């Protein structure tokens, strides 16, 4: 499995700003710190935000990670979020994105910035280049306390060698572009970090402008830092990245599955729905914590050793919360949300605490429920209703589990990879038993 972290620096910085962060992360994955076009000595370029995202697509695709995270600082944060949006929409270049980290990140919305400050910074190029004094003003204004040497010189040196097109392009246009609609809502897990001493892009701005785009996000504030977090608090930043990225990498789909999903045998739309489903479900609010625990225990009994019980219970709660069911229900049961809460409560009552029982006892009880031979006084559902609800519940549990990409990978199912977006869809050339095509590399459990 090729696991990589891509680092995108801030305006006027370079790949070097990550040096001390990366030192601490080498065991997490291969760290790729990039120079954005026009910075760090790379060729100057006049790219708008879409152009920057395209550039990143090229960088990522060239390294073909199967499991990767993007860490974006300030200006790089806007690019990171929009890359995540393209991953969500099925762009093959960004397939396999597992986590996003934003540091004092510029949001998809126009970045809050005082106009005089913007004008001043644009003006630095009036004489052709940014002077040492101007660079020092910039770096010092963005740190809580002046950086120690040689870091301060490194940082100011990077500002000085910023390309004019890249610098002005960002300030005049890129930072002002409004990408809120394209960003939409993202399910990829995000860590949003703010420096406690930052100004325009501090915690408030992060909560207001970046957080709403991420369904599964956490905001962290790093003390003793303003805007240049990787320089100011590299250890704290690295620890946060590690803590966020490791579990996300741990949930990655197996490498052959990830590679197949990224291939041209899969349409964008298919890739998008599969990745979306692989992410954590949106929060549900139909079930109480107790009902969720009973449901998790039910999942464990219906699919032992199969589904992750807590995850699947969350998915069913999300399904109930969305109100989108499977198109029908038993006429003897109430609407889905009520049926599930009543069914779970009744099950808990029949068991005298379903979640606390051994799996053998739970299984035995389910057999009795299935025979309609168990009822409890005062329970919401009678024996007949419990029988019907249990049929519905186990079908829904099986349905949700089977639809997960991780389950497809587990059983060696490649039926989603039957045609990309080209005019000729690939399909299968072989259909007879015990024949297989070269591209079919997913393993079947033995």
């Amino acid at each position, binding site marked *: 499995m090729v696991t990589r972290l891509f680092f995108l620096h801030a305006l006027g910085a370079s790949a070097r700003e990550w040096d001390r962060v990366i030192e601490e992360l080498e065991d997490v994955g291969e760290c790729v710190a990039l120079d954005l076009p026009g910075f760090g000595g790379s060729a100057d370029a006049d790219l708008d935000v879409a152009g920057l995202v395209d550039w990143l697509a090229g960088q990522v695709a060239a390294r073909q990670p199967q499991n990767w995270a993007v860490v974006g600082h300030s200006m790089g944060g806007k690019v990171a979020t929009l890359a995540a949006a393209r991953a969500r929409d099925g762009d093959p270049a960004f397939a396999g994105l597992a986590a996003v980290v934003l540091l004092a990140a510029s949001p998809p919305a126009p970045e809050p910035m005082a106009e005089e400050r913007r004008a001043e910074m644009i003006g630095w190029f009036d004489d052709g280049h940014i002077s040492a004094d101007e660079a020092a003003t910039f770096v010092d204004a963005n740190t809580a306390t002046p950086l120690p040497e040689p870091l301060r010189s490194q940082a100011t040196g990077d500002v000085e060698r910023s390309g004019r097109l890249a610098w002005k392009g960002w300030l005049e246009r890129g930072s002002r572009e409004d990408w809120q609609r394209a960003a939409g809502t993202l399910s990829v897990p995000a860590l949003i970090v703010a420096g406690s001493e930052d100004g325009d892009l501090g915690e408030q701005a992060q909560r207001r402008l970046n957080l709403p785009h991420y369904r599964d996000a956490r905001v962290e504030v790093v003390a003793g830092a303003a805007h240049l977090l990787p320089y100011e608090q590299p250890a704290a930043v690295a620890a946060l990245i590690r803590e966020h990225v490791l579990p996300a990498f741990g949930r990655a789909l197996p490498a052959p599955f990830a590679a197949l999903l990224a291939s041209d045998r899969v*349409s964008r739309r298919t890739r998008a729905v599969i990745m979306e*489903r692989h992410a954590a479900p949106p929060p549900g609010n139909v079930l109480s914590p107790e009902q969720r625990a009973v449901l998790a225990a039910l999942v464990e009994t219906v699919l032992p050793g*199969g589904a992750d019980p807590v995850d699947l219970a969350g998915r069913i709660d999300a399904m109930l919360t969305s109100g989108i069911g499977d*198109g029908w229900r*038993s006429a003897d049961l109430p609407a889905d949300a009520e049926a599930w809460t009543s069914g779970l409560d009744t099950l808990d009552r029949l068991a005298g605490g379903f979640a606390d029982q051994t799996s053998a006892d739970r299984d035995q009880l389910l057999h009795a429920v299935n025979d309609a031979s168990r009822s409890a006084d005062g329970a919401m559902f009678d024996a007949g209703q419990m029988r019907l609800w249990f049929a519905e519940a186990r079908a829904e549990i*099986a349905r949700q589990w089977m639809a997960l990409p991780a389950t497809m990978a587990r059983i060696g199912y490649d039926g989603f990879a*039957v*045609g990309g977006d080209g005019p000729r869809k690939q399909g299968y050339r072989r259909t007879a038993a*015990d024949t297989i095509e070269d591209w079919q590399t997913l393993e079947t459990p033995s």
Partner: protein
Amino acid sequence: MSGAADTVDVVIVGSGAGGAPLAARLAKAGLSVVVLEAGRAFRPDDHVPDELAADIYWMEERLSGGTDATAFGANNSGMGVGGSTLHWGAFCPRPDPRDLRLRSESGQGEDWPIAHDELIAYVDAVERVIGVSGPELYPWDQARRYELPPVARNAPADAMARGCAALGIAATDAPAALVSRDRVQPHWGERRACINCGTCHQGCRTGAKATTDTSWLPLAVAHGAEVRSECRVVDIERDGSGRVTGVVYVRHGERRRQACRALFLCAGGVETPRLLLNLDLANSSGQVGRNFMAHVATQVWGRFDADMRMNRGYPSSLITEDLMRAAGVDHAGGYLIQSLGVMPVTLATNLARGAGLWGQALVDLLDDYNRLGGIGINGECLPSDDNRLTLADETDAFGLRKARIDFSYGPNERAIDGHARRTMTAIWEAAGARDIFAVDRSAHTIGTCRMGSDGDRAVVDADGRSFDIDNLFICDNSVFPSALAANPALTIMALSLRTADRFLATRG
């Protein structure tokens, strides 16, 4: 309410198997035709080979009761320009002459008010338009010819062929409404040859499979018909004498009106009767909603030593009609057997619900997905007074009461189910399957507005015309007087052409 002031000759509600062929034929005859379809329009490329993401099903809630409550949603009804043909399996056996005369033959069920020869002429016309692939020689009908060679068999089909051969049961490549070679569809474009992707039920992305949106509807539009998507018909307007004057429909939240001289309801076996019952129309016989039928669709499954990967290939590539009238049986009618290719989510749901499985047994079977193989039937279902569609007290987003469908097998369905289990188990044993088990299932939404010659016992006459309202017609799965063992869509399309011809012949 906004409305088109123009009165059109014909409004057709629903663009599936029942609505689309007649739209084409009426438009071709020079009538002004508007098709109103509740669902969206798709291009083949829009479909997604994923069972949960496919968005071509009618997912609004229906209530299902009875001892053999039938599943709705993705199991049996479509929504979209193309109706259920968007996700149908394209398995298209022809109706058997004996099935049309089941009552005369067995004293049970109903006879159809249409002669088989006449119906088959229309079936033939349908097949020529949509393109059907099939075997060179059809063992049960020597004269039959198919335009295109059969599609590739998949692993379950090979297993079924093996099992049938061992038992002396004739089996052959199934007639399938798909093109096994590239073929130009007039007024639409090139339909690409089937690529064996196996995702017919999620929508065909190559245009190989026959759907009405790539065949009949473009033909209709070429002759001036208008197909309006995302238009939900919620009301039918009448004049003082009770004749239909137009419909009211909702498009993106806005109510609109379309005036018409004649109305064809082709909204399917559930929505057509539901609309009529909600509006209390065309029901002097009391037959609307009655005699709901669903084919007995029992499946038998087993594990194979071989790597089957049944999701590959056109799903139902083998058929036998040998059980249409088996010797020495105690049931009326019969059944067809087909090989199956079932996608994982549908399989998991069927195993959990229809086979009553959970626990380690379920996990082990699903883990073995690539080694499983199944066969299934489509079996006769007799009309019964107990099986009916009524209105629930709950209403939908448009204020119309939801449908409640009660369905229980009678003795004949149980007998067919039992016979089929034994037959299919024997075939599967002979094919080398292990750990064989059956899954209970029923399929299709048939009946509920049946046709007949007696206005006291039927909702429409043989021409699809309401006995109560002379400019109201029904043409979809709901007019079937009996289920027929053959899967329904080909017959529905044939009836649709006939209904159009009869309308043209009898209109003043």
